[in-house]
């Protein structure tokens, strides 16, 4: 019996050992390196920076959180970020639903496959390039002005347009999956009972696909809350939470405060996930 064969025979009799060998490297990498880094980040949020040396001082305090809550600038930025996230989610849901509806209910199986690829491929095109393309299109003499005779310029509207564009596929795909699972017989039954299109949509289709819409909103919401580059490219002078984090790491060199601000999107997402948990949206991810 060769060595390889005896090793593989030994391993075959020890499934726990095999599992341990398979799990050790990924767990060391993600568990220790990544979870450790996250834990360290949240610990850092309670520390502060020495104003003279710029060094991190490892004393525990809630000062950073107090600044975050009491300072009006950060309140405004948090509310603006939330507002943008809500607007982006609504815009995406309104655009995505009809597209997903046609894909799921009218397209042939072959066309469905092609359409899913068509929606998914641009998802991977560089985030930065897509934001940049809107900067080009919304500029004074860009395509949008040429098509419509006016452009919203750079500001909140441009930020919402660009972020909606960026995350649209993340909304289309879960809604498509949700509608694909919705049995046609229910829609037909509604029609047989005399409901017109709108009534069927409102009373049958929408309630049953709501979890899928919420699933999509988790992406649009979470991705918007963390954004800082799009708003830098098309947002004019506006700032989002991500910009505060970024500026505190770079220019201000205040890592503890950056860590504190970074907990805000995480907390908002945890609250959001807790609220939508009962819709069953999490099973749609």
């Amino acid at each position, binding site marked *: 019996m060769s060595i390889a064969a005896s090793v593989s025979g030994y391993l075959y009799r020890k499934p726990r050992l095999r599992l341990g060998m398979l799990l050790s490297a990924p767990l060391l990498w993600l568990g220790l390196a990544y979870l450790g880094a996250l834990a360290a980040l949240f610990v850092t949020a309670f520390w502060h920076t020495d104003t003279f040396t710029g060094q991190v001082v490892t004393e525990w305090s809630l000062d950073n959180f107090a600044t975050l809550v009491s300072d009006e600038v950060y309140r405004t930025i948090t509310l603006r970020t939330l507002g943008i996230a809500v607007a982006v989610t609504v815009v995406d849901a309104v655009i995505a639903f009809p597209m997903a509806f046609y894909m799921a209910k009218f397209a042939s199986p072959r066309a469905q496959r092609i359409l899913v690829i068509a929606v998914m491929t641009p998802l991977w095109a560089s985030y930065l*390039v897509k934001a940049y*393309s809107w900067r080009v299109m919304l500029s004074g003499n860009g395509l949008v002005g040429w098509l419509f005779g006016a452009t919203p310029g750079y500001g909140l509207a441009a930020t919402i347009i660009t972020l909606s564009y960026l995350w649209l596929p993340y909304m289309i795909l879960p809604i498509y999956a949700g509608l694909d699972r919705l049995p046609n017989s229910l829609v037909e039954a509604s029609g047989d009972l005399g409901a017109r299109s709108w009534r069927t949509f409102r009373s049958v289709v929408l309630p049953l696909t709501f979890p899928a819409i919420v699933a999509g909103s988790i992406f649009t919401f979470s991705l918007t809350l963390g954004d800082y580059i799009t708003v830098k490219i098309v947002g004019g002078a506006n700032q989002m939470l991500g910009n505060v984090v970024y500026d505190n790491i770079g220019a201000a060199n205040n890592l503890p405060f950056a860590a504190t601000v970074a907990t805000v999107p995480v907390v908002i997402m945890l609250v959001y996930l807790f609220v939508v948990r009962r819709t069953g949206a999490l099973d749609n991810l």
Partner: protein
Amino acid sequence: MMLSKKTKYLLLAALVLGLAVIYLPLLVVLLNSFNSDTTFGWPPSGFTLEWWGRAAENQGVLDALVTSLEAGLAATAIALALGMMAAFALQRYRFFGKDTVSLLIILPIALPGIVTGIALNNAFRTILGIDLGLFTAIVAHATFCIVVVFNNVVARLRRMGGNLEEASMDLGADGITTFRLVTFPMLRSALLAGGLLAFALSFDEIIVTTFTLGAGLQTLPIWILDNLFRPNQAPVVNVVAAVLIVVSTLPVYLAQRLSGDTASGGRI
């Protein structure tokens, strides 16, 4: 479906319009890279290959391309190994804490990029005392690329079941031979697809890269961001943007043709 013809056509119109909006900005960037006018007024006044030539001679762009390729290839290699191991462990075994492990694999991509970015930045600099460089960026990229390989391999393992492997063992092949001659050949296209997607993801990534790549180094997305607000660089920025579109969507398209298992970057 019991919907009127009119509704059906309205929905089709919405779909066509939506797809047009999805593709239009990408086409504008591609077209602009050939625009002979430096201010990019629309419509373009003429077409030229000059900017492509200039980009090909631009040392900053070439260095950034090399860094992007190095980071992408190294991160993909690590993600392939770790993603495949995790996929086998989670798909073939039952154990305590299984759900936690699968959550852990998704986490780096589920949390906002900026959180992942500063967590790793903080861990490298303050806690481990490592200077940022290409190495730290590779570690960061590999961390969020694992999920892509994992998803592809898990989907394939689920679909192929265990019958063929059992048959191979019944015929006397040992575990290693079975893996080499039966399991691996069936996994190959899933691994290739996962690898292509991981590479595309790494090639595009900007937020985590900003926080983990050493000063003086640039990937292509970071080169664009650094040059975005310099007016005289606009034509070359357009060429680099066009390259990024092609280099990142082509592997995705190939991966989807190769393996219909999954191709959404782990977010869906």
